[in-house]
Every structure is written in structure tokens, then in C-alpha cells.
């Protein structure tokens, strides 16, 4: 028997991925050059809404290096096929066809009109200048309420409406609780608030890119995508290509945050152009193109009503949403608000809930998944209105939460939305966070500052949250009309030397799958961490998968790996029993060896691997392989939770916000790699805080994106953010064998309301009840002056652009 090996799961392993990334030996899509490769550049509409009268490409075709110039009609018949939307949320959902290139009309600024193929990228971009397009401008419709007005200009005249779909859930009708209308009569307090989720840009650091090689037996596409498997299938369906003739490779991918869950017009265009020309082609976007045309996120108006008793008992919640889809529907865009629909109740157990969402078209870049997708919006609404309710009732906001949350002993708990939360301990996370934060001490200091009229006021922001991770379950996705399943696939190949290759369908883009999956397999098979290689992101080696988004990789893909390992062990056991001439029941598997109980006889999995490879002495009829495959579809989502506390100092004379401390205690169940968990939380916090303080995509009245570069769209730098205090509690998930819950989106979901609650808390005695995001110094100052909500009318100039730059100095 080998000695007991320290478990890998739970270790803060430094990452296997790092070596290539810190030495510059990375395979970004844009690093790839193939023999004879041409470069693509796309001509984009300067208008948000216009008829295309004519396109003249003749001069461009004569430019140096230009091989071809195509418009929509040249790409026919492929251009007749619209870009896919995989989530028809209602049977009558309006889904306008989005062509690869606009043929007759452009519907947002940045929509592609023509594509140039040239020898170099510079020549391709140069030639764009020589394409002559005549437009006939149309009135532009921007803003949710404008678009829904009775006489509104229509983005798509043929649809007869700017409403794509209306989706409704009521706990009374669904049988999961009372109806909101029933309980409203019992309420002693009714509060209604309007919150705005500004439009954000996922802003992955690696711009999107793809390379297509048509010269092999398969059409091979490299793409900076989060979803190589879905892309392969959707591109094949969209273009009518036989799926087995397409191979998609996502090499190293430089971030996604939901922004690379898409089947891009440029990707399908590159497939068509490469086939037409018979040569490899590359498309690599500029950052300005990315900000303009890669999908945006959030952009909702939320009208929220909460009803309660005077003692703080919440009776019901009503959420009425309007969500801006932009000019077209993205791959999963229509479903994003619905992912939030089941989370507006958060960690609370009130009896009645009503949700309605109206998805709306405007002449803007389309919106789709962005880190958290629907859940940050929901968490923001409930955590903001819980604070407003606490203020109304004169209660401490933490006490109000505790009065209404699901108690530790009440799990598993079925919520008003019909979800069953398997496990959670909000008490433990909150208590730990309070201690780390010095909640009581800061409340005392806050009171002193208020009393003394200190120009720097202190606010405390609370966010106690949960989220729904691990999409699948496929049956649930089906009930929501999502166009695919949510299972994940894994395969394990035990090589003749006993080393192990693991294939996963969850293709990573920075999350550290190679390290975490190695830790899981090392524990399962008892082989060294270093002897395991994780293969992903190539539909040839990883032939099945549902890819990476929604914090699903570990809790779906990681469990598939566990299941595959169990199959390997079962096979190896048969061989071990045969080799050691004993019954399988006499064997126990520990530390990578099968030992005969009560003896010192043992054989290692490496020895078995070689025995299987040589096949000289195997049980009769044994298929000579230790390889395995598993596909896992979970029975339930997982529900990580946490308590986030933020202390913000607000200069009442300038509106400047300084984040003095930020403490969060997250419960992600069992942490496979605590170092990676901590990193995910840090990054998530930065994105959520940035929504509160810095970021907004802004269009002017003509539909031009005024935040079209990184000089205008304010991503926070190191100087704009504080250090965070992070800690964990560990309440294992009871619905998967690892006990893991997922962490990728937690920080983003929880932090935005924590920061806004802190700033409003600092200023509540000035009569401030809300400040629109991003909370620029101008908006904060305006709120102080006017003692009420700082409305959006001063905000459109302030948001995202210069106003935010002022804010950047404020959050150190």
C-alpha cells in the first residue's frame, strides 16, 4: 500500500496555466498566421438607423493588396440566414433576422455593411475608406420608455412593434406561493422604487478574433470564444454546413465575462469568405470595434414594489422590468432577464412574488450575457429595496435581513419561485463578515460623524446575496424554452505510462480549469497532479461540451470529471482483481493503488495502465482500455451565497466617494482551490464596484456610442480600486459529490448593491434615497443638493464619459 497522500482538493495550488502566460508563449487567436492567409476588415455603419440606398465597392477592389470585397448580396445565399438566437422565451417572441452584413437597412451604429479581404490587415482597413455607401437616414429610437411609447419609431417596421416579448411569473398562479395581489392588502408598508441598470460593456482584454482555414478536410475555425462547441453547431446550422465538416478551436482566450458567448457575424462571414476564396482568413477586431459591436450587458429599468408588516416581515415583492435588447436578439439575450426572475427573492422567504419583463428593441448594439447575467440585476433590486425598507421602518438593515432570510436549519428550502436551495448558512457568513468589518464600531463612527456635521460622511453598505449557479439542469432549461441542454462532458484517457489526459467540454478563458481539474483527478485516481494534462477548447479532442459561462464549469463540468474517474476506477478494479487473483470485493482503492484487504499485496493504477496497454494478461472479454467518458446533468442548481459589507466615505462638498473598506465572506461550498476562488472574488468585486462607480456605455441622441474607446469607457485601473478583505465559510452543496457551488460571478453580483447602499446610507440624512449608477461625483453632489434621488436627466452626460473620470479618483 502506498502512504496516504495529502488531498489535492482544498489546496491553494498555484496554476498550471501560468507558465505560458507569464512567458509570452500563449496561443491567442491573433497570434496565428497560416500560409497564404488573408485579412478581413468590416465596413461599419456610422448611422444607428438608415436605409442602404447603394453600396459601391469598385474603388476598394482596386486598392493595393485587396483580394475581394463583399456585400450582403455577394455572400448570398448564406446572407439570407440570420444570426442565431437560441432562447425563444415565449411562443410569440419577435426575433428580427440579423444578417451577417446588412443588406437593405442598418439598425445600429456599427452594423457591418461590407467586408474586405486583403493581404495585410492594414491594407484591408485602408480599403474600407474606398467603399462608397449611400444611406437614407431614418429616425432613431433610443431608451426603453421612448421605444415603448404608442407613437414610437419602430426599429423594425415589419414587426409592427418595438416589444420583442413579455414574460410573466406569478407565485400564486405557479402554485409556489400566494399571489402578490392577495398579500398586498395585508401590508402595513408598501414601498415602490425605480432602479436603473445602466448599460455596461463586458470588456474582455483580448479583442475578439477568428481565423478560418478551409484547406483541410474540415473547415477549421480558431476563435476567441467562450463557446467552441455551441459555436460549431450554431455556425453549421446557420450556414447550412454539415456539422462534421466544421472544427472549432478556442485556443488561449483572453477573458470573456459573457462577452464571448456569441455566434458572431464576423465568424460566419469568415467561414463563407474562406470557402469562397479557398484560403485561410483572419478577422481581428480593434478595441473601438469591440466596444461598438461586441454585445453589451445589463440595461434595464426595474420598477420594484415591496410590501411588509411594520415589524419588518416582508410579505411580497413585485418586479416589473423593461430590458433593452438593442437592435437584434443575441444568442441568449432574451433569456438574460429570466435568469434573474428566479433570484429577486434572493435569500428571503416571503410568500408572494410577481415578475414581469418586457424585452424591447432600440437602435443600439445588442445586449446579451454579462458576468452574472440577470442575477446581478435581481440582487441589486432586492438588496437596494431591503435597505430602503429598513430605513422606512427605522430598523438596522442587517436585522431586517436576518428577520426575513431562510434560517440555517430550514434548508433545503423551496423558494417562492419554486427553486429548492439545497444548503446555506447566512448566519455564519454574516457573523464572520460583521467581525472582520467591525460593523458595530463603524456604526458608532457613522453616528458621530453625522452628529458633528463632518463634511466627510460615512456609509455602510450591505449585500447578503445568493445566486443560481451550475446551468443545467437541462430539464429546467427546457421548461424555460432555452434551445439547448446544460449537461457537461468529460473523458479520461489513462496512457500506457500511467499519465493521464483529461478532456473537458468546459472550455476555460482564465478560470484555471487546468489546475482545478488536475486537483480533482489527482484525488480521484491517486495520480500525481503533475501527471495530469487537461485538454479543452478544441472540438476535435473535446468532441462534446456546453462550454463555460454562468459559474457552471466546476459544478457541472467538474462533476463530469469525477464521474469519468469513477468509471476508470471500476475498469481498473476488474484488471487488478484479475492480476492479483482475488475477488473485486477484496480490493480497496486508496492513494492510486488497489490493495488486497488484510494483506500487503497491491498494484498501482500505473501498473494496471501498462497491463491494459500490453493486453497480455487481461480478464476474458475485457476491452483493453482504461479510458472513460461521462456526461453529467445535475439534478439541481447550486446556490452559493455570501455577505458583503462596504464602508464608503463621501465628501459632501465635492461628491467624491472613497471606499474605505470592503469585506466579503463568500460561501461557495467546498473550494477546490482557495487561491483561485479568492482571485475570482477579487475580479468579480472589481467589476461590480465598477458598475456602481465608473462604467456606462452611453449613446448620444443620434445613436452614436460616445464611449467608444477605452479613453471614454472607464474601466477601473489599479489606482481606482481598494484592497478587499475576503474570507469564506464552507457549507457544502448537497446535490453534487464535490460539494462545490461555483464562484465566478459572486463578486460581481454582490458588490454593486453593497457600494450603492453604502453611499446612500452615508447621505440618507440629506434626504437621499437613491443615486443612479455610475455614481459619479456630479450625481452624488446633485443628490446632496436636492435631497432626493439624483435622476437620470443629469446623468446622461455624466455617465461613463468625463463624469466618470472624475469619479476615478474617488475610490481609492
Amino acid at each position: 500500500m502506498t502512504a496516504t497522500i495529502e488531498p489535492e482538493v482544498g489546496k491553494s495550488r498555484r496554476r498550471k496555466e501560468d507558465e505560458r502566460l507569464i512567458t509570452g508563449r500563449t496561443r491567442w487567436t491573433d497570434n496565428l498566421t497560416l500560409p497564404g492567409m488573408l485579412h478581413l476588415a468590416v465596413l461599419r455603419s456610422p448611422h444607428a438607423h438608415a436605409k442602404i440606398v447603394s453600396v459601391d465597392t469598385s474603388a476598394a477592389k482596386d486598392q493595393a493588396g485587396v483580394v475581394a470585397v463583399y456585400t450582403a448580396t455577394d455572400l448570398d445565399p448564406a446572407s439570407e440566414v440570420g444570426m442565431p438566437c437560441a432562447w425563444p422565451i415565449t411562443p410569440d417572441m419577435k426575433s428580427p433576422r440579423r444578417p451577417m452584413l446588412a443588406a437593405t437597412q442598418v439598425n445600429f451604429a456599427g452594423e457591418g455593411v461590407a467586408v474586405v479581404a486583403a493581404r495585410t490587415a492594414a491594407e484591408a482597413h485602408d480599403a474600407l475608406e474606398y467603399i462608397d455607401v449611400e444611406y437614407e437616414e431614418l429616425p432613431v429610437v433610443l431608451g426603453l420608455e421612448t421605444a415603448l411609447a404608442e407613437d414610437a419609431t419602430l426599429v423594425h417596421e415589419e414587426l409592427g412593434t418595438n416589444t420583442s416579448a413579455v414574460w410573466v411569473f406569478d407565485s400564486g398562479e405557479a402554485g409556489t406561493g400566494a399571489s402578490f395581489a392577495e398579500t398586498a392588502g395585508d401590508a402595513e408598508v408598501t414601498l415602490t422604487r425605480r432602479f436603473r441598470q445602466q448599460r455596461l460593456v463586458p470588456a474582455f482584454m483580448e479583442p475578439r478574433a477568428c481565423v478560418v482555414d478551409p484547406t483541410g478536410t474540415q473547415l477549421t475555425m480558431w476563435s476567441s470564444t467562450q463557446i467552441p462547441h455551441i459555436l460549431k453547431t450554431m455556425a453549421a446550422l446557420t450556414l447550412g454546413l454539415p456539422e462534421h465538416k466544421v472544427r472549432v478551436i478556442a485556443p488561449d482566450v483572453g477573458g470573456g465575462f459573457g462577452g464571448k458567448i456569441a455566434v458572431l457575424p464576423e465568424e460566419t462571414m469568415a467561414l463563407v469568405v474562406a470557402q469562397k476564396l479557398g484560403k485561410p482568413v483572419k478577422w481581428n477586431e480593434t478595441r473601438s470595434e469591440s466596444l461598438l459591436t461586441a454585445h453589451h450587458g445589463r440595461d434595464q429599468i426595474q420598477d420594484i414594489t415591496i410590501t411588509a408588516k411594520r415589524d419588518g416581515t416582508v410579505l411580497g415583492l413585485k418586479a416589473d422590468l423593461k430590458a433593452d435588447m438593442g437592435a437584434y436578439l443575441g444568442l441568449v439575450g432574451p433569456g438574460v432577464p429570466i435568469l434573474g426572475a428566479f433570484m429577486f427573492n434572493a435569500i428571503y422567504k416571503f410568500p408572494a412574488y410577481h415578475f414581469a419583463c418586457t424585452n424591447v428593441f432600440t437602435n443600439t448594439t445588442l445586449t446579451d450575457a454579462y458576468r452574472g447575467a440577470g442575477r446581478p440585476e435581481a440582487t441589486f433590486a432586492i438588496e437596494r429595496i431591503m435597505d430602503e425598507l429598513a430605513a422606512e421602518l427605522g430598523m438596522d438593515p442587517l436585522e431586517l435581513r436576518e428577520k426575513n432570510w431562510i434560517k440555517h436549519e430550514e434548508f433545503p428550502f423551496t423558494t417562492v419561485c419554486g427553486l429548492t436551495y439545497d444548503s446555506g448558512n447566512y448566519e455564519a457568513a454574516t457573523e464572520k463578515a460583521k467581525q472582520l468589518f467591525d460593523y458595530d464600531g463603524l456604526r458608532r463612527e457613522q453616528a458621530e460623524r453625522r452628529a458633528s456635521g463632518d463634511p466627510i460622511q460615512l456609509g455602510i453598505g450591505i449585500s447578503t446575496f445568493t445566486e443560481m449557479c451550475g446551468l443545467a439542469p437541462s430539464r429546467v432549461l427546457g421548461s424555460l424554452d432555452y434551445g439547448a441542454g446544460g449537461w457537461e462532458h468529460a473523458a479520461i484517457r489513462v496512457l500506457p505510462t500511467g499519465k493521464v489526459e483529461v478532456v473537458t467540454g468546459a472550455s476555460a478563458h482564465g478560470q484555471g480549469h487546468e489546475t482545478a481539474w488536475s486537483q480533482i483527478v489527482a484525488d480521484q485516481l491517486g495520480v500525481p497532479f503533475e501527471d495530469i494534462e487537461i485538454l479543452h477548447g478544441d472540438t476535435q479532442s473535446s468532441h462534446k461540451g456546453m462550454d463555460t459561462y454562468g459559474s457552471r464549469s466546476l459544478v457541472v463540468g467538474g462533476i463530469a470529471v469525477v464521474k469519468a474517474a469513477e468509471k476508470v476506477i471500476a475498469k481498473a478494479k476488474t484488471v487488478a482483481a484479475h492480476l492479483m487473483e482475488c475477488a473485486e470485493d477484496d480490493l480497496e482503492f486508496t492513494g492510486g493503488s488497489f490493495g488486497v484487504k488484510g494483506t500487503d499485496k497491491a498494484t498501482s493504477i500505473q501498473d494496471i495502465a501498462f497491463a491494459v496497454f500490453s493486453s497480455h494478461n487481461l480478464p476474458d472479454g475485457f476491452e483493453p482500455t482504461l479510458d472513460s467518458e461521462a456526461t453529467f446533468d445535475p439534478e439541481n442548481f447550486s446556490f452559493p451565497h455570501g455577505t458583503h459589507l462596504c464602508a464608503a466615505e463621501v465628501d459632501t462638498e465635492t461628491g467624491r466617494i472613497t471606499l474605505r473598506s470592503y469585506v466579503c465572506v463568500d460561501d461557495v461550498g467546498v473550494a477546490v482551490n482557495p487561491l483561485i476562488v479568492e482571485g475570482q472574488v477579487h475580479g468579480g468585486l472589481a467589476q461590480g464596484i465598477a458598475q456602481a462607480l465608473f462604467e456606462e456605455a452611453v449613446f448620444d441622441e443620434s445613436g452614436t456610442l460616445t464611449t467608444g474607446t477605452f479613453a471614454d469607457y472607464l474601466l477601473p485601473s489599479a489606482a481606482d480600486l481598494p484592497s478587499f478583505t475576503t474570507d469564506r465559510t464552507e457549507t457544502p452543496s448537497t446535490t453534487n459529490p464535490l460539494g462545490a457551488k461555483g464562484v465566478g460571478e459572486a463578486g460581481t453580483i454582490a458588490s454593486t448593491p453593497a457600494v450603492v447602499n453604502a453611499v446612500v446610507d452615508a447621505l440618507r440624512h440629506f434626504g437621499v434615497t437613491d443615486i443612479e449608477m455610475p455614481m459619479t461625483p456630479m450625481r452624488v453632489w446633485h443628490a446632496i443638493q436636492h435631497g432626493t434621488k439624483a435622476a437620470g436627466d443629469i446623468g446622461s452626460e455624466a455617465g461613463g464619459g468625463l463624469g466618470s473620470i472624475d469619479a476615478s479618483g474617488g475610490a481609492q
Partner: protein
Amino acid sequence: MRITVTVDGTKYSDEVEPRTLLVHHLRERLGKVGTVVGCDTSNCGACTVHLDGHSVKSCSVLAVQADGCEITTIEGLAREGKLHPVQQAFHDNHALQCGFCTPGMIMQSIDLLADNPDPDEKAVREGLEGNLCRCTGYQNIVRAVRDAAHHMRPGAGPEAERMSSQESASHVGIGGE
């Protein structure tokens, strides 16, 4: 125009268009694809390299301006299989996730440490202000830079890649705990 540059210790002589940016020359002509392009407005810093010992955003330098210069990229930092202390510190402190900003971030950090061999948190945050990261929230990057400071000769900065074998021996390897 004909230019000669020494990149990571190798001399290259090439004809370039006057408009060619250094980053494109490095990537497209010399195959130094470890240096990446993240934006087109010189805001993100992903393309940061050292030009005659100091950090520059290679998207804001014309290739012809680099004529006769010595350039160090991320690919030239590790010597004889040994990581630069800043590279090692980024690994040790989990200071990267997707890794796209990492080459620029490391090159900028080395220059920052040349100016200030023992920076406090504020100095690191301000010194890295021109380099954007979307994954890490910067906290572990700050930690890594301060950790690296303890493993480098004071003021050695960009030259620290030529660290003594004794220093490097105590701080090598990757992938282990």
C-alpha cells in the same frame, strides 16, 4: 525605411513602412507575439515592452523610432529557463487569470521597481495605472509586485533579468505548491 533593432538579445534588420507601429513590427515581422494588442488608443498597456531599459507602450512608438534601440519583451525575460523574479511573483501570488494583460503588466512592474525598489501599495497602484486588467481586481498584482521587490536587487529594475545565479536558485520553478 530600413531599421535595425535588437530584441531580446537578437539583432534584426528590416524594411518597414514609416507608419508601422513597434508592436506590429514585433508581432508581425519578428514573430514576437508574446507582446499583445489590447486597444487602439494606448489606454490598456497590454503591449508594454522595454525600449532601451524603460517601459513604453509599443503601440505608441513607431518602429522607425526604435531604430538602433535595444528592446526587451516578455519573451526575453526568462534566462536559461529561470523566470524573472517578477514573473515568478506573478505566478506565486496568482496575479493573473486570463493572462492577456500579463506581459504588459509584468514589463511595467519591472520598470516600476527600477524607479522604486520597495513601493508601498499606493505606489504600486499608481505605477500600474496605465495598464488595465479585467480579471484580477489588481489586488494580487499589487501583492506580486511587492513580493517581487523582496527578491530583486534594489534598483536593479529592467536589468534584474540578469540576476545572479545565487538569487535565481532560491526562486525558480513553476507548477509546484
